[in-house]
């Protein structure tokens, strides 16, 4: 399904350094930043499981806490979609950059965002990643390379392209990955962004997280054909569709794409089929609105990659991982609870830098 991938045989690989692109102008006089060591972490079933299970459980805890009204923030859960963020981020290093969406918990955590800050942010507390000013829809952790997200669909796509442009101008050895939904690809700005990224051969991976729906509107109500990759190819962006939702396959495809990007070959496009188990927004079950056949979701749940990954791990190791994660989550909730609300004066801070 993903032709030409050879690196996927090993769970360990090292990113090939992106050789400096040819300098088109004679007058470049900019400082070249210190070379980043783009080493990508090792991954095994255990590390994948840890990440998948952690995201799943964080979101389940949000579901549990939600009726208590302590999280006064609309939440767009990624339950069921964890493998996309985990798989792609496994092909990235810390100084690679990701941009995502309001459905950002999984990406934030997969990229290494701080769990305490996230939880405090959801609670609207001062120790939140944005001091409580942003909520679930706008998570950020610059140290982890997780840029801010947006509640306006598709808006971060050109930001990612702009960031990739800066990387290219500075001859840095990093790449950007931008995550967006199938719905976002309806927007004109997505096309404008793909065209420009391809034109300039920017170091960017477009990741279309295709859960089949924009809120309750299926792809078939929004596109004449289900052909995301074909559209990307019309911009001369090499494209891959991963249908299985398997973390390892997604990681392999992303890694393959990342290698090409780091070589200076320009953007790549990755479509990952996935499924949202919960309602578009809020903690409820997705089925309550009856907008899609139960079987569709059942099929995805049967293939749940969190469970599948778990099943490949020795029971003792698995319990140890789970216990560790549970402790971390409990601590994060306690941290969020303990954190104070921002002071009233903070209302007027940060409007300008």
């Amino acid at each position: 399904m993903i032709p030409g991938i050879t690196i996927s045989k090993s769970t360990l690989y090292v990113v090939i350094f992106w050789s400096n692109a040819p300098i088109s102008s004679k007058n470049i006089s900019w400082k070249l930043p210190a070379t980043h060591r783009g080493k990508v972490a090792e991954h095994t079933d255990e590390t994948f499981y840890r990440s998948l299970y952690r995201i799943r459980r964080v979101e389940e805890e949000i579901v549990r806490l939600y009726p208590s009204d302590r999280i006064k923030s609309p939440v767009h859960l990624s339950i069921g979609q964890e493998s996309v963020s985990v798989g792609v981020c496994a092909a990235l290093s810390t100084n690679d950059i990701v941009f995502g969406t309001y459905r950002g918990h999984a990406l934030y955590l997969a990229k290494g965002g701080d769990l305490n800050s996230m939880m405090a942010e959801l609670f609207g507390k001062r120790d939140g990643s944005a001091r409580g000013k942003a909520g679930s829809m706008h998570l950020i952790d610059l140290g982890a390379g997780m840029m801010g997200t947006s509640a306006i669909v598709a808006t971060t796509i050109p930001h990612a392209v702009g960031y990739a442009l800066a990387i290219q101008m500075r001859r840095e050895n990093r790449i950007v990955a931008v995550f967006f939904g199938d719905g976002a690809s309806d927007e004109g700005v997505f096309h404008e962004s793909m065209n420009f990224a391809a034109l300039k051969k920017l170091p960017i991976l477009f990741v279309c997280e295709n859960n089949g729906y924009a809120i309750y509107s299926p792809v078939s109500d929004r596109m004449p054909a289900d052909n995301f990759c074909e559209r990307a190819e019309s911009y001369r962006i090499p494209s891959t569709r991963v249908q299985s939702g398997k973390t390892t396959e997604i990681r392999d495809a992303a890694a393959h794409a990342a290698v090409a990007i780091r070589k200076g070959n320009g953007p790549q496009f990755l479509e990952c089929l996935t499924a949202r188990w919960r309602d578009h927004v809020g903690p409820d079950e997705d089925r309550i609105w009856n907008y899609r056949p139960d079987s569709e979701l059942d099929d995805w749940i049967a293939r749940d990659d969190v469970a599948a990954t778990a099943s490949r791990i020795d029971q003792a190791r698995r319990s140890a991982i789970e216990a560790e994660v549970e402790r971390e989550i409990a601590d994060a909730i306690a941290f969020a609870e303990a954190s104070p609300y921002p002071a009233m004066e903070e209302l007027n801070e940060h409007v300008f830098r």
Partner: protein
Amino acid sequence: MSSADRELTYSEALHEAVRQEMSRNSDVFVFGLGVDDAKGMYGTTAGLHEEFGTERNFDTPLAEDAMTGVAIGAALAGMRPIHVHQRMDFLLLCMNQLINIAAKASYMYAGACHVPIVVRGIIGRSWGQGAQHSQALHSFFMHVPGIKVVAPTTPHDAKGCLIAAIRDDNPVIFMEHRMLYGNRGVVPENDYEVPFGQARILTSGNDVTIVGVSHMIVECLRAAHVLREAGVSAEVIDPVSLAPLDIDTIAASARKTKHLLVVDTSWTTCGTGSEILAQLVESLGEEGIPKMKRMGYAPTPCPTTRPLEDIYYPSGQTIAEAAHALVRGRDWTAPQIEAREISEFRGPF
């Protein structure tokens, strides 16, 4: 309950308006993201596709810019599209079509064509809607000639203004506030129009005129209530439409009370309040200018955390205090007044 005092919620009133107009005129259709889903835009478009067919109430791709252009094109062909946006913030993607085309077509072509579109924009608030899901953009549209702006507050006016907007031959921005949706009020069963450019005096008073925009009217009424108990008699005015704006009713009231407070559901700079104050100072120059003040959102983006969100917006209490200070010239602490539509809000968003 006789049919003369039948009560509906704000969202039911909108639903009834659009149903009646769709029945009356086959040129009317409704489209926008999610208008035909199970939630039916908070009920305001529920079932329209079943009643009038899927061609007349349909979902769209996420493509606000083109869909605005599609509305304009259909209007140029004689249709009367209603384009619905779950958040008014999304209109920022539609500005080119709305301002460069819709607002100008009649003028540019010297009346050869016109653009009868209704653009419904819902203003979000509460439960951490945050900076990008809580904006009201009416001042942009008030600034530009050729486009009308209405912001009804009561269920009665919601229905009558929506019918009037649909029948209007010009582009109309129809502002709805999410916090108004649950309000109940008497709504006649027949189809009727609430004319634009006629403000309503909701409570009469002698000491201060308070003009509110959209949901802020509710807070202004709360303020008037506590002001009365503090011995200040407030006249609360709902402009209903912002373009055209009924400055005469506001001016007459302010001339009487000698104090004017304008409470906007947006930032104050270059906002509705600026406009009202400026018009009054220009026109009332000779007769003595009332004491005037504007209120609105804090001059910041909207924070999500509840404590900051609460002080970001004017409230019944802060409005009462501001009005009191205007009239009495001294500080006073008004009692807190619960705004249950806010404190009890838990979605749907």
